[in-house]
């Protein structure tokens, strides 16, 4: 998920940075004071999630949680993930500072998309519908991120089909796990803090 430095060309990097800049600007404008602690918590959760490895067969996969962050924060996903990714780049050298814009866009934009697509489902009072919505949000956010990465890599000369195939194969298990984790966390949060789903971002 984290594209390294020196892989993408300048136009792609600039486009990604622009997208992230616009998203972050709108996100920051929309945030209310009450929402700030939530954003901080989810940003921290995202920061750690990339280090949480779920064992799976011979190898294992790591969580991204951009679906969960998206469902809860909407457009504020951009600032939340920007901070998380900035620190990951700085401390762990995941991705890098030049690719920060692209990487943030790749993970935050799908979060915003699932917020608008599945937000109404997740906010439903029927737990089954909310669960399905949460699963789809978690899984689709990963899929969209993977497609974005594959699309960007085509500009480096890799064929989209090959890159997309590889990313899909690698992320299919992540999608399922991410979906399940999102369902668990959403149903848990709906029980203990139902009010956070009612707040407009």
């Amino acid at each position, binding site marked *: 998920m984290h594209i390294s430095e020196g892989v993408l060309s300048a136009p792609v990097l600039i486009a990604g940075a622009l997208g992230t800049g616009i998203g972050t600007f709108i996100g920051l404008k929309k945030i209310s004071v009450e929402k700030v602690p939530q954003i901080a918590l989810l940003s921290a959760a995202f920061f750690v999630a990339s280090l949480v490895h779920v064992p799976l067969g011979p*190898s294992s996969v790591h969580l991204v949680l951009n679906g969960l962050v998206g469902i809860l924060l909407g457009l504020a996903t951009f600032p939340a993930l920007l901070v998380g990714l900035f620190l990951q780049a700085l401390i762990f050298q995941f991705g890098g500072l030049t690719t920060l814009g692209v990487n943030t866009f790749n993970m935050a934009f799908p979060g915003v998309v699932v917020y608008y697509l599945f937000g109404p489902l997740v906010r439903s009072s029927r737990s089954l519908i909310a669960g399905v919505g949460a699963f789809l949000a978690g899984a689709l956010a990963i899929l969209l991120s993977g497609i974005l990465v594959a699309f960007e*890599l085509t500009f480096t000369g890799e064929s989209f089909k090959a890159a997309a195939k590889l990313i899909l194969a690698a992320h299919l298990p992540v999608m399922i796990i991410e979906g399940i984790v999102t369902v668990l966390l959403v149903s848990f949060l709906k029980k203990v803090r139902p009010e956070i789903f009612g707040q407009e971002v």
Partner: protein
Amino acid sequence: MKHFFVFGVIAFWILLNSPAIAHKINIFAYTEGNTIQGEVYFNDGSPAKNTKITLYSVKGDKVLAETKTDKEGIFKLPIPKGLKEVKVVAWAEMGHRAEMKLKLSQNNEIASAETTQAKVKPANSQVLPEVAAANSISEELFRKIIREEVRKEMAPLKKMIQELARQADKPSLGEILGGIGYIFGLFGVWAWFQARGKRGK
């Protein structure tokens, strides 16, 4: 809130106990005899198989050689002639890239010193014929033996350095906690400023 801490503890437990595929690859290269050897691994230490390796000159980015890593993530490349420093770059799928600069100057110097000394030697042995006779093994053979012995002695040290490099690339608990601290601190400052602005109105 209490439940969040339980989640955190579980997350840390998983994190500290499992291997994984990941967001970053590392490269560690060194010279050995007439080859450049090295290995590529993910940030958790597992080998990056079948990864493309490119050898560049530091200036001009000219491709000198290319190869791929084997099952253990190890690669071998010939040392290019007449260069003091090279750049070894690893390209893994999904936009991962790692590079390392490798100095070759020392090795070249030793090699050249060897040849000049070898040329001087015959004159010396003429001066001291009895010494030359006493050394029943030839100068060249002697050097070869020493080189092999030194290599044997150095092998565990090289392993240790590799191990250290791997350890250094792994995210430490301190770094993780530090990152979380930064996130909360940042959003705390933000919330503070927002709250002050509100009071001012």
